[in-house]
């Protein structure tokens, strides 16, 4: 099991503790309220992800061949979902990120609870994360 898969399984397990969606949302809201490591100088249009109903800024840094992701949103629940994504993808190698299959999104039922436009937003975020990973991989040759 790759570490990306491991983190995903942990998330699925954690969320399965909640019986209804209101509780899951509460969990996402709490995650969204947490302080995050995001440098506000990246709050610029060039770091904005297209296709989200709320604004999402994302940037990435590389440290010892692992990538860390930093993101911010003006909507709390979106911020909570981002926190989950960052948990999964941060401190992973570019290859692991590029090859990651994201079954946790289906498993926790998140997709069914997002409207089509919102699900598209989530997909845009993942796409952007993978684009960063590809970029770092190419840079390192």
């Amino acid at each position, binding site marked *: 099991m790759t570490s990306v898969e491991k983190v995903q399984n942990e998330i699925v397990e954690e969320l399965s503790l909640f019986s*209804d969606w209101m509780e899951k*949302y509460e969990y996402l809201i709490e995650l969204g309220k947490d302080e995050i490591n995001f440098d506000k100088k990246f709050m610029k249009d060039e770091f904005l992800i297209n296709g989200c*109903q*709320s604004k999402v800024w994302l940037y990435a840094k590389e440290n010892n061949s692992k990538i860390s992701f930093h993101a911010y949103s*003006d*909507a*709390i*629940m*979106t911020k909570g979902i981002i926190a989950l994504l960052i948990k999964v993808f941060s401190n992973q190698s570019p290859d692991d990120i590029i090859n990651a299959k994201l079954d946790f999104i289906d498993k926790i039922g998140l997709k069914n609870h997002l409207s089509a436009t*919102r699900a598209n937003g989530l997909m845009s975020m993942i796409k952007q994360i993978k684009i960063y990973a590809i970029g770092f991989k190419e840079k390192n040759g």
Partner: protein
Amino acid sequence: MIDFEKIRSSFPILNVKVNDNKLVYFDNAATTQTPTQVTNTIRDYFYKQNSNIHRGVHHLSNISTEDFEQSRKKVREFVGAEKEEEIIFTKGTTDSINLVATSFQKFLKSGDEILISEMEHHSNIVPWQLCAEKTGAKIKVVSVTKEGEIDIDHLEKLLNEKTKILSITHISNTLGTINPITEITKLARKFDTKVFIDGAQAIAHQKVNVTELDVDFYCFSAHKLYGPTGVGVLYGKEEILEKLPPYQGGGEMIELVTFEKTTYAKLPSKFEAGTPNISGVIALGKAIEFIEDINLDLIFEYEAMLLNHYNEKSNKLEYYEPFGTSLNKSAIASFNLKKVHHYDIGVLLDNMGVAVRTGHHCTQPLHKKFNLDGTIRASFGIYNTKNEIDYFFDCLSRAYKMLY
């Protein structure tokens, strides 16, 4: 008196459950629900009379043509137009605006002006931008006051002999403001400016009489009038419609076709190229009957009572920030809650069974003017109740507590 039980029982969709909660449908400005009277009409059409109109000699075609034209008659009476030739069936409000914004290009030259307002829906902005690009005409934009009303002084200032057409909404889909159309039309008449009114948000909520309003064009969609999607109406004064060139070419809109030259059919066929949405048009006629049975004056009163009740509740919330505070409003309430994102509220309300709109409601320039990324919008229809509004506010405070 409105027979409430009877009205609600005409809308089976109101029994839908969302996450085990009863649906509370407050997105009527986006689309209204369809009563069984209308859905039965659509079903019956396909069971008993589906055929193409205006051309067959057979029984089915004859009765469908008759019903289709009967709908036109109903629409004419409903909006107070003088002639049936003045009623064009389109795909919807957007299509109606595009029709005029395209055909009217014939009368525009570089330097002419088109007047719109800051509160317009994108559908009443973009077609005019396309029109301006093609003709070299300029778009001028009338300001909206902080209460969310058209700044009439500004409108008066902008009007001049170069203003060939002004296109303004009857009721703002975001602010709910009911615009003073008669007053605006009077001002426009001084310069022979043609007046186009987007009636999408008005037609199901108050009596509209295009002759009394003295407008040149008026348009609306069936699906905001308890009818089906994909059908709309363009009213235009006969003398102007006569002068406008056709919008699209095809069947029905021709008189005689040769490869050298085609002559066009008379009104209204000139603007109805191709096979129309026949069942939809017939169903629109039924929707109008449905509305008239209830009585639009009573609907207006009832919805005003709902808005009043809503305002009493919202005034008590110190974290409620209304967008659009005109005293002359239709039953549309856009707002934000302090320090909370509209999207978060929308998701939680949805989870509790309440359907509202979040975002910019296709009025980005209006939101931008007031420095808003978006708002939450609750909009009411004839089946909504005070109890639903109470439930809505319970949900709203619950959501706010979770988020804040």
